Structure formats: C-alpha cells, structure tokens
C-alpha cells in the first residue's frame, strides 16, 4: 500500500499545477483589467504565483519521492541515523529569508502608487464622494463649481460614472457600518469606514460598464449592495452630469 499512498501524494503537485494551468484558458481567471495601475498588481500576482509554484512543486515532489523511496516495506537499507544538519539549517534559513525579504521590498512601489501617493495632496480635486449605506452606494459629484457641499452638487445612487483616461479621486465614506468599495476590473479595493473619509484614486483606460461590489460584510442585504461603474468618454461623461443635474433640478 505504500506505493499507493506515495502516488496519492504525487497527485498534489500534479493537480495543483494542473488546475492553475487549465483555469486561465477556461475563462476562470482575474477579470479583465481596465486600469492604469492594475498591470502592476497582476504582474506581482503572476510573479508570486510562479515563485510559490516552484517551491510548491519542489517540496511536494520531495515529499512524494521520500515516501516512495523510503517505504518501510520496500526499503532494505538501515535508516539514516541523524539528528539534523547545521549546514542545511543555515542554508534553508538564509535562502528563504532573503527571498521573502526581496518579495516584500519588490511590492513597495506598487503599494505606494495605489495607497500612499495621494494625487489629492498635489491638488487633484475630488471627482466624486461615495458614501456606503445599507445597502446602496450614495454618490455626490461636486457639480460645475468643482466644490462639494454647494447647491450645485449632483446626487445619484449606485450608478457611478467616470470619464476614461483621467485620474479619478474618490472620497470614500460610510454613514452606518463598514462597507468595501471593490472595483474588480480596476483592481481597486478599499473599506468605507464610518467616521473616516478615505481617498481612493485610479484611472480607467477603457470605456464600458463594470461591477461595483461591496466586499465587506455590511448586514443581511450585503449581497445586494450592488453598484454599476460606467466608464465613458469625457464628452459623454459631461453630458451625463448635465442630464443628471437637470433631472435633479426638475424634481425639486
């Protein structure tokens, strides 16, 4: 039976790699990236996937091989009576330590771009204020004067429009519980926290309609807290703002 069990452990690296090999072609992979910064994240994902994949295959294959080779019913050799190896310990401590440190440092620029280098600090005005509320996304555009909190603000719900190829600065808030502003196609995710206004910035490079997902449990209706992201040309966007403002004024 030792042979059988060894082979069972061999299926781990085979199926493990096989599934990741098969998935992208079968349509199971990261959703299409339409952001300017997203390729950095996707690149880091692939980088870590390959690196961990190699370690995964190497260790699981070793495990299989040792089980196969040293099966008590087949192995006539005496055991290797040893309590360890100082040299090996040093090697397999220093090598992974260096690799892990490298992986960590390698991430830092991408992280800084997305979460630290806030364009708002360099004077980019807020494009839209997004406020999570059970179970909808309330949107407020600054209107013609470019300032929030003035009479020409444009209010809207769940239907987020942004212009293409422009840096967007969102001010993210919540009026009740935690929510999470998740745009899968833009590789954007940020919790909306009651009591905080958190800046989120990104640039979309393609027009179209995409999902806005709430990714932090916010109550029984969490699953239906669905918004829509419409990326449109500058002109369409301006027109949409005007139509929406007009509709809002008409109901006053």
């Amino acid at each position, binding site marked *: 039976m030792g042979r059988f069990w060894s082979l069972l452990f061999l299926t781990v690296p085979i*199926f493990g790699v096989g599934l990741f090999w098969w998935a992208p072609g079968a349509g199971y992979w990261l959703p299409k990236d339409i952001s300017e910064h997203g390729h950095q994240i996707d690149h880091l994902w692939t980088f870590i996937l390959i690196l961990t994949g190699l370690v995964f295959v190497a260790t699981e294959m070793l495990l299989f091989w040792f089980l196969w080779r040293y099966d008590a019913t087949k192995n006539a050799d005496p055991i290797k009576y040893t309590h360890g190896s100082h040299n090996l310990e040093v090697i397999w401590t220093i090598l992974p330590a260096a690799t892990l440190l490298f992986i960590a440092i390698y991430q830092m620029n991408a992280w800084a771009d997305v979460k630290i280098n806030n364009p708002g600090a360099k004077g980019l005005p807020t494009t839209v204020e997004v406020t999570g509320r059970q179970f909808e996304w309330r949107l407020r555009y600054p209107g013609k004067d470019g300032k929030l909190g003035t009479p020409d603000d444009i209010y809207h719900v769940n239907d987020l429009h942004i212009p293409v190829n422009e840096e967007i600065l969102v001010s993210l808030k919540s009026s009740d519980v935690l929510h999470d502003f998740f745009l899968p196609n833009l590789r954007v995710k940020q919790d909306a926290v009651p009591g905080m206004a958190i800046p989120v910035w990104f640039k979309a490079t393609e027009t179209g309609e995409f999902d806005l997902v709430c990714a932090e449990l916010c109550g029984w209706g969490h699953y239906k807290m669905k918004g829509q992201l419409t990326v449109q040309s500058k002109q369409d966007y301006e027109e949409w703002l005007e139509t929406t403002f007009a509709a809002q004024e008409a109901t006053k």
Partner: protein
Amino acid sequence: MSTSVLGSHSHEGDHAHGHHQPLTVGGFLSKYVFSLDHKVIGIQFLFSTLLWFVVGGLLALAVRWQLAWPWSDMPVVGRMLFSAEGGQISPEFYTMLFTMHASVMIFFVIIPILAGAFGNFLIPLMIGADDMAFPVLNMLSYWFMWPAFFCMTASFFVTGGAAAAGWTAYPTLSAVQSAAPGSENGQTLWLIGLIFVGISSMMGSVNYMTTIIQMRAPGMNLFRMPMTIWAMFITAVLQAFALPVLTAALFMQLLDRLLYTGFFIPEGLTVNNVSAGAGGGQVLLWQHLFWFYSHPAVYIMILPAMGMVSDIIACFARKPLFGYKPMVYSISGIAALGFIVWGHHMFMSGMNPYLGMTFMVSTMMIALPSAVKVFNWLGTIWGGKIQFTTPMLFALSFVAMFIIGGLSGIFMAATPVDIFIHDTYFIVAHIHYVLFGGTAFGVFGGIYFWFPKMFGRMMNEFWGKVHFFLSFIFFNGTFYTMHILGAGGFPRRLADPYHYETFKHLQTMNQFITICALGMGAAQLIFAANFIYSLFFGPKCGRNPWHANSLEWMAPSPPGHGNFDVQPIVYRGPYEYGSPEVDSDYYPQTQPPPEGVDPNADHGHGH
C-alpha cells in the same frame, strides 16, 4: 508539590504527593463529570469539541448549499428549519450561518480540541507527571466552556437570531443593535460566550505553563521534551499574553451595545434609520484589538498540531526528528513574530498605508520559521523506514497541505496583490488549508495515534485509511478550487454573488465545490462510526502499540489515576529511533542505557 488530587489512590513511586480521601468514593459524578483527573478532563474536551465539530460542519454545508443553488429549497431539512421561507435560506440567516460556522469551529472546536483535549491529556503523560499542577483549575477550565456552549446555542432562539456580523464581529455592524437582526440580542450572547471561552483558555494556559515548568519527571530537561509539549508550552504563553487584549475588547463591545459607551462608534451615525448614539469612538480600534489576539490565535490553532505531527512523523519514519532544536526555535520564532503581524488583516481597512508596508515585511518574515519546519519534516522522512499507518497518513497530509496554506499566505502578505484578493475566496482557501488541511488533519492523526492510550483499544486501520482517503480527496476538491474562485475576485460572505456579471460564470465551480464538501462531510461518518465502535469493541492494545519512545507509552493503556505505576526517569530525548546503542528500532526515554554508555551524554541535536 503539594497538589491535592480528589479521589487519588496511592501508588508506588509517588513523590511528595498529597493524599486526600476522595469526597465520594467511586462516585460517578466525581469520576466522570466533575473529575479532577487531567485525562478525564481531556476526554471531556474531546467529546464536546467533536460534537461541536458536527455542528460547525453542518453550518458550513448549509453555506455551501446556498452558494451552489442560491434560494433553492434545501433538501430534507429545509422545510423544517425555514418553514417561513418555504424551505429556502433567507439572506439574514445566511449571514448567521457563516458567522456561527467560523465562531463554532474556531472557539468551540479547534482551540479547545488542541489545548483542552490534547493539551490536557498529553502534557502530564508526556512529561512524566501524575496530573496537572492545578487540578481544580483544570476542571473549571472545562466547565467554563459550558456557559459559552449555552450562550451560543441559545442565541439561535432569541429575537433576531444568532450573531450575524462575521466571526470578526467588526463594529459598527456588531456594536449597533439596529444594524442587523443578529445584532439585536444574538451578538450580546456571542460576546458573553466568548468571554467564557477566554476565561477557560486562560485557566488552561496558566496550568499548562506551570505544569510544564514545574512537574517534569527526573531527567526530563527542556530539550528532551517532545515537540508536542514544546508546542503546547509556547501556545500557552501566546494565550496568556494575547487573551487579555481580546477580553478587554469583548467587554468594550458589550458596553457599547448595552450602555452606549461608544468605544467603537463614531459620532453622528444613523444605522437603519436609528441613531447610533453619541459615539466619539473609532471603528478601527476594535480591529486592532481583535487582531492583536486573533492573529496569535491563528498560531494557537496550528502550533500544537505541528507538535503532534512532528511526534507522529518521527515515530512512523522510525528515525530521529530532523533538527529538533531548529524546530523548537522556529516555533518560538513564530510565536514572537505572531505578535507583530496582526495588521495584515487590515491592509484594506483604512489604516495608515505606511503601516501596511511594515506589516507586510513582518508577515513575509513569519513565513520563514514555517518554511524551516517544513524542511525539517521532509528531513525527518528522508532516509527513514516509513510505515503508512492512518496517523502517519494524516500527519503527512498535514505537511502537504500546510505547504499550500503557507505559500498562499504569501499572496496576501503582499499588499498590492492583497488589494485584489482581500475578502475573496482566495483567503477562504488559505485559512482552510491551514486550519482544516493543517490542524484538523493533524487532529485526526492525533486521535488515531493516541486513541489506544486514551481508551486502551485500537481504532480500525482499514476504515481509518478509507476515512483518510476520502477526506483527502474531497478536502482538496473543496478548497483547492477556491483559489481559482479567489483569482476571479469572488467575494466572501455574499448570499448570492451571481447577480454580479463578474461572478456569474463561477456558479458551476461552486456547485462542484459543494458536492465535494458534501462528500467530505459524509466521509466523517466513517470516522464517527469507527470512533464509537472502537471505544467498545476495538482490539485491546498494550502499553506501546506503535513502539514509540515518549513517556505516555510507558504508562498503562488507559493510564490509571496518577498515570504511571513507577516513577519514570528520563535518560534521553523522545526521538531515538534506530539508535545504534540498542538492537530494537526504538529506544524509550525511560530505558536505562546499556552498560558503559554515559546516560548524560546528550545526542547531538541539529548540529
């Protein structure tokens, strides 16, 4: 030692042991219910946690049902449980299901089965003590679980139902009563329940630390302790330092809910059309306090299993553990680093993004001691004579699965990648590889391994292997696939994710996962049958059925009160398999060395 042990009877070699007459001689209550014997308490923990394992598993299967076939009538039990909805799971019940699944599995199964069941049963036996240092405290640590059991069970029947804010209980959803049905009363019971679990754990950990430091048999110096004991010791230290923070946080949330103290609630909130009170607090404060405990708790939930797996692997590889001291140091390293990585749960929380960078570095580094452990396990089986027994198969699959769970952690530690996979099924896959493929498989291995010591009978090997095979296949079918869901961005905790265009195509894969999960659940019936049958009809075993070295195998199976018939004296470490000093392939810790061999000559560990 002047420990008073209820109902203790004298035995040879008893050392300075207080002899008290039993309160009720041979009474059923004092022997099996309010017992002070660490073995009985351990077995009480074992039975209780296994029963809760069933509950937690059924809750998980209900979650899986909804994700595969949302809003469809649940077969068999649907009409009974959800008659108001005509047999389908309601969205608010769905949030309760995953909240209670995680709460039950973490606080009622994994933590108490490792520390409570195995810690209690094994610590005195493996260090050669006749009981714990504080038997009464030990008994109380079990009975303090019962108010918690009661609170959690009762919470399903109060207005609004059980807690539904996730096992992480993030305010303001959890702290404001109007935020969710489960936050009306269920959350209060959840908090009270957890406070009791905390008290129980604290009593246990104080006891374990004292026992391990004070009550080791002559010759059992620290570096002759089995890895299980090292792991239990480090775990107890982790518990003792991390738990007070959680307890404080739990009380603060309780006060927020009942007295409107507003520790975690900012001013000016209106939740579900009800004012959340004066506020003045910080939502993120809870997350910091909670994870300051709950990240170390992840290690509380794996280190003891790592220890048990090390012992099992060395025994069935018939070879000394590779790198004993590096193993001890890496457990200690994990524990130390475990206190400075909690922020990696909060990369997307709105916490200072610079902190994200430092937590990323510390989190990456904690992968290092885990990697060292994996290499040493591989080193242990290299060049051995491997016996594929059921406990060994589970221990080996611990290693194989822990590799996956460890490596997938690197994705989430990388902050930019975490932006995409945070709160997706990628993390669900990760934690289940660590806690199910890792800990639960380690626990199964431990049960098959120590069952003969606990009950004096063997479990059936054939059915044990069938159980292993099916669990292994279905476990991987269930959880490995979830990595792919995570790559698709599939979020956690959604009752119906398929109305998003982005996730529509993932339903088929979810159906496959649910079928595997049902298979995995069914496979546990084999374990249950084997366990119960073997309790009564398993073949009787001698003291040392596996030819293992550590002290518990020198005691009778099951050990009587006071454990050992003679005072064990320890001559060496527990991993002397295949030693050239003796002819047999094992060399018990208590066996005196042959003539002319210096009993104090230490065998090189890791040099």
